[in-house]
C-alpha cells in the first residue's frame, strides 16, 4: 500500500479523537514507515490538526492507541510519555514560537533542558540549526519581528533541536507565498535526506502534497473517517473515490472514472 518501505516509526490503531466526548475522526489506523514523508490530507476542519494533537500527546484519544515502536504512547505513564516525546519534534500551525524569547533562545531552550551541553555549545548549536533552515543572522530577533515564513522556519529549527527521528509539521506552507512555500518543501526533503528524519505533514496544500508526500492518509470531514490511504500520486492515478479525486484535482474532477488528463503530471 505504501510507497516507501521500512519499519513503522509510529503506528496508529483504531484511533478515535474528539473534543468533549464528541468524535471528530473515528477509528483511524495507519502506520508511518521510517524515512517517509507521510501526508495527512483533507479539507479544512476535517480533523487533521486534531489527529496530530492525538499523536503528539496533546489530546487524549477517545479510543485506540498510538504506538511509537512497540510502546503505546497513551498507556505509558507521564514519565514514559515525556521520554517518548523526546523522540519527535513538532512544528505547529502558526510556528508557535515562544514570543518572549528570541529565535535562538527558542531553539536553545529544549537543548538546555535535555542536553548536557554547556551554554556556549547550546548557543552554537542553536545558531547552526537556524542556519540549517536559512535563518543565519536572525538569531537575536524576536518572533514578532520576523515574517510568517521565517517564523515557520524557526519553528522547524526548534522542532529538530533535539535531533528527533520523527518530525510532525502542521500546515508548514499554508499562508505562505508560493516561493516561500516551495522553500519549506525543499527544506523538508533536504532534512529527510541529510538527517534521515521521518516526517508526518498535515496539509491541504495540493502542490506540497504532490511534491513531498510519498505516503499518506486522506481524512474526510463529512463522515469523520479516513477514506483513502497511500501515496498521493498513486491516489491521483488510481483512486475511485470522488471526494479524494475532487480534492487532488482542485475540484476539477466531477464525473465518474479517471480524473481529467490535463491534471495528471
Amino acid at each position, binding site marked *: 500500500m505504501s510507497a516507501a518501505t521500512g519499519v513503522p516509526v509510529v503506528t496508529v490503531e483504531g484511533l478515535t479523537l474528539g473534543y468533549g466526548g464528541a468524535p471528530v475522526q473515528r477509528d483511524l489506523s495507519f502506520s508511518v514507515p521510517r524515512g517517509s514523508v507521510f501526508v495527512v490530507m483533507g479539507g479544512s476542519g476535517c480533523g487533521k490538526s486534531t489527529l496530530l*494533537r492525538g499523536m503528539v*500527546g496533546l489530546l487524549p484519544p477517545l479510543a485506540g492507541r498510538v504506538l511509537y515502536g512497540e510502546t503505546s504512547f497513551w498507556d505509558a505513564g507521564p514519565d514514559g510519555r*515525556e521520554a517518548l516525546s523526546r523522540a*519527535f519534534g*513538532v512544528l*505547529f500551525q502558526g510556528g508557535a514560537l*515562544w*514570543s518572549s524569547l528570541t529565535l535562538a533562545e527558542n531553539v536553545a531552550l529544549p537543548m538546555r*533542558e535535555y542536553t548536557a551541553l554547556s551554554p556556549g555549545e547550546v548557543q552554537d548549536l542553536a545558531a547552526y540549526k537556524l542556519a540549517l533552515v536559512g535563518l543565519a543572522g536572525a538569531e537575536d530577533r524576536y518572533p514578532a519581528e520576523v515574517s510568517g515564513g521565517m517564523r515557520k522556519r524557526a519553528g522547524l529549527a526548534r522542532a529538530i533541536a533535539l535531533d528527533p527521528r520523527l518530525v510532525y509539521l502542521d500546515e508548514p506552507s499554508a499562508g505562505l507565498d508560493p516561493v516561500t512555500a516551495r522553500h519549506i518543501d525543499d527544506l523538508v526533503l533536504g532534512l529527510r535526506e541529510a538527517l534521515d528524519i521521518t516526517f508526518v505533514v498535515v496539509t491541504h496544500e495540493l502542490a506540497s502534497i504532490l511534491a513531498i508526500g510519498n505516503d499518506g492518509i486522506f481524512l474526510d470531514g463529512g463522515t469523520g473517517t479516513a477514506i483513502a490511504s497511500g501515496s498521493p500520486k498513486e491516489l491521483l492515478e488510481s483512486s475511485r473515490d470522488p471526494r479524494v479525486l475532487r480534492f487532488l484535482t482542485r475540484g476539477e474532477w466531477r464525473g465518474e472514472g479517471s480524473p481529467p488528463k490535463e491534471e495528471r503530471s
Partner: protein
Amino acid sequence: MHRTDRKRTVGAPGASGEALDAERLRCGPPENGEVRVELRGPWTLDRPLPSLGPVEAALARGGVERLRVTDGGLGEWDSSVLVYIEDIEAMAAERGALVDTGALPRGIRTLLELARSARGRPIERVEQPRPPLLVRVGDRAVWAWRGAVDGLEFGGEVAAAVWRFVRGRARYRRSDLLLAIQQCGAGALPIVSLLNFLVGLILGFVAATQLREWGAEIFVANLVGIGMVRALAAVVTGVTMAGRTGASFAAQLGTMQVNEEIDALRTFGIPPAEFLVLPRMMALGLMMPLLALYAVVVGLLGGAVVGISLLHFTLAEYAHQTYRALDLTDLGVGIFSAAVFGVLVALAGCYKGLRCGRSAAAVGEATTSAVVIGIVSIVVAMAFITWGCNILGI
C-alpha cells in the same frame, strides 16, 4: 426570505416614483403563456428599486409558464439588478413559472449563476437546536463538575511545580521571574499609592466625623491604624493587583495558548505550571507583602492628613497614638494576608490564561474572569483568615 417585505417597502413610492419605475421596468401582458420583462436605464444601488407589482400582477393573471427577462436598453448596473432578478425568480417559482435570463448581458448571467451555485452548497455546520431544560441542567452540572476537577488538577500541577522548586529542580527562567517581579512591583507603585492614600483619608474622615461627637477624636489614629494594617492595605492592594497583574497574566498566557505556545512547551515535556505559573506566582507572592507594607505607610499618611488638618493634632501626637494602637501581630496578619492574596491573584490569572480558548475573544473572557475570580478569592480568603485569627485569638 424577506423578499415580500422588501417588495412592499421599496415598491411603495408615490406617483413620481411609479413614473420612474415605468422608465426602468416594462412588463408586457402574457402572450402564449410568456411574459416579457424589460429592464431599461440605470440600475444602481443609489436609487430605490422599482416595485415588483407589475410583474406580480402579470403572474397573478394565471396561465404564465415563462418569464423572459430581457435587456431593453439597460444602462449602468450593479448588484441591485441581481437581487431584483432573484426576487422575480422567487416569485415565479412560487407560481411554478420558469424564468429565462438568457437575453441579459453576460456579466449579469455569470453573477446570477455564481450566486446560485454557492446557494446550492450545503452550509457545513448547522446550529444545534436548543436542548430541553433537563438536558441543559444536566449539561450545566457536568460542566461544573468538570470545572471543579480541572481546577483541582491545576492545583496539583502547581503543587508539583512548587515541590520541584523546593528541591531546586524546577524548570523556569530566572529572567521571567525578574520580569514578573518588576511588572508587579515597581510598576504598581503609583496606583497602589493613590488608592491606599485615598482609602486612609476616607477612613480617617469617616472616623473623625463620628468620633468627634464623643470627643474621642484621637481614636481616629487607632481606627485608621488597625484598619489599614490588619486588612485594608492588603485587600486594596490585592484588588488593585487582581485588576492589574492578574489580568495581565491571564492575557499573556491566554495569548500564548491561542498561539499554541503552551502546546509547544508541553510537547517538549516542559510543564507550563513550572515554566509559566511558578515565576509569576512567586513574583506576586513575594511582591505583595512588600507592596502591602508600603500601602500601610501610605494609608497611615492618609489618615494623618485628616488628623492634622481636620482634627488639629500634631504629627507627633498622631504618630504616637498610632504606634500605641498597633502591635506586630496586626502587621503580621496584614503581611501574611497580602502574600496569600498575591498567590491567589497569580493563580487565578494563570489558570484562566492556561484554560483560555483559541480565539481573541476567549483571551478577553479569560482576562475578565481572572479579575473576577481574583477579587472573589481575595474576599473569601480574607474571611477565612479573619475566622482563623479569631480561633487562634490573634
